[in-house]
């Protein structure tokens, strides 16, 4: 038994981590789907919908309508949406980073919502 102790523990740890790796990496979606998000910003203080969701590597098209001139900023991806009152501003990007990215009304740093890429 003595000389098998370390290999037994090592084997249990390796099996556990292998299952963990399988569960984590097998759950990943391949992505590449086209996702369209239509958001409306009111008075630079709120946005509907507040949460945008996408999968890794999806191609995301965002259409934003605002009732004010200004900038909606998607942090992490560092994408500015220069809004003109009543007009739609559209940007398309690949969701190549996973995470939870805040969206702000840039001039006042007011949080409007967030983009979740999983």
């Amino acid at each position: 038994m003595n000389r098998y102790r370390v290999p037994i523990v090592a084997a249990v740890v390796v099996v556990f981590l292998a299952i963990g790796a399988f569960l984590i990496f097998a759950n990943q979606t391949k992505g590449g789907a086209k996702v369209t998000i239509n958001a409306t910003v009111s008075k630079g203080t709120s946005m509907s919908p507040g949460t945008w969701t996408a999968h890794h590597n999806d191609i995301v098209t965002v259409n934003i309508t605002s009732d004010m001139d200004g900038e909606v900023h998607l942090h992490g991806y560092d994408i500015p949406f220069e809004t003109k009152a009543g007009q739609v501003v559209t940007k398309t990007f690949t969701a190549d980073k996973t995470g939870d990215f805040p969206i702000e009304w840039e001039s006042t740093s007011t949080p409007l919502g967030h983009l979740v890429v999983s």
Partner: protein
Amino acid sequence: MLATAIFLHGFGTRYDLPASLWLYLFAAGGVVVISFVLVVVFAGEQVGEKAIRYPRRELKLLLSIARSPWPRVIGGLIGVLGLATIIVTGLFGSSRPELNPAEFLIWIYFWAGTVIVSGLVGNLWYLLNPFAAIYDAVTKLVRLGPVWKLPQRLGIWPAVLIYYSFACLELTTGMANRPYIAATAALAYASLTLAGMILFGRDEWLQRCEAFTVLFDIVGRFGPVEAGRDETGRITAVYVRPWGVGLLKPAPSGWDRVVFVILMLSSLAFDGIEGTRSWADFTIATEPYWLPQGAFGFFLLKTVSVTLLTVAFLLIFIAFMEMVIYFGKRRVDLMSTVSGFALTLVPIALVYNAAHNYYYAVVTAQALIPLLDDPLAKGWHLLPAVAAYKPSFALAQASTVWFAQIVLIVVGHVIAVYLAHLRAGERFRTAQNALLSQYPMLVLMVMYTMTSLWILAQPVTSGG
């Protein structure tokens, strides 16, 4: 509302997703199963002094390097340059933390990075310590003798107090994200340390009052590089050993040492807890009490919380140690036993620290690179080639982060349980007593690892 750009000590944006519930449950279940396997498989191992003997291999190649003055000279130069950069850029650079190198150097490169690397390799602070380097350089020119003697009964309590103050600066003052405050604190601490070394003696001050020397001595014990020294302190051999086993080496004991280790654990835990939604709910629920005092009220709330958490950690640890000694059924020296077991918790804290700071280490740290072009935000172009550098997210995909975190947490837990097992064998002398005494320690470690996992699985909130 769930805003996710949280800040390390009020600084440094992170966008990582918290581990999901199923992954948390899987890891937590795995930790329990592996702990059980460890205890069963290693039951009846070596006891007495043999239990804490570990394999090590001498590295003859490294001996001449370790004996030469160059590692200290180069390390000291890097340390002094880092300290000077922190002070100059912190005082004269941008007031925005994300544009000031001082914030990156203190909170990511020193605080997160040096701890991680010291755990992986060995006590890096021994080489980098800028205070020791300045003192050594000055004493080559001027003779400086100690004027006073530190009372022996003070133990390392001064270091405990300084570490507690540093934890408060980092976690509770809300000022860690102000570069000039960070720089002023660095300048004040450098002055205090240099004055302390001059007045009380270099090694006395470093080993008993300089919190980072005490901290990195503990962290370095986890690392795989070990130096053998003779009575004069001269290096006689350099060894490599398995990670963690250095924590079994004889170490000074005392409540001051135990409280220092517990403070390491509690401040790390509080750093994580502060970013959770539960903490946000707690601060909202207690608003009637602290809000009238404004920012000072919030500082007070956080300081009381981190203090109570430390006291709670300490009481829980003492209660479990009472059980360990009871089940060990052997008269042992209480103080050295408690101190010895406290060190076996260090691996769990270190891996949690690495898991918690993973995102900062692999992504946020890169944001220092473009700042090198204009470190004082004066519109300079010192290194135009790096000005446009954008951090790579290659190692920060959610799946990679989660897997790295799970690996770290599980491996750290296994090392901690194994070390506690060896320590019990050494303390309680018979295999059966050692095994019995293991159970309370195992429960404590599982609880601590579960807490670490729980924090990592929490949705993060803004602020922090």
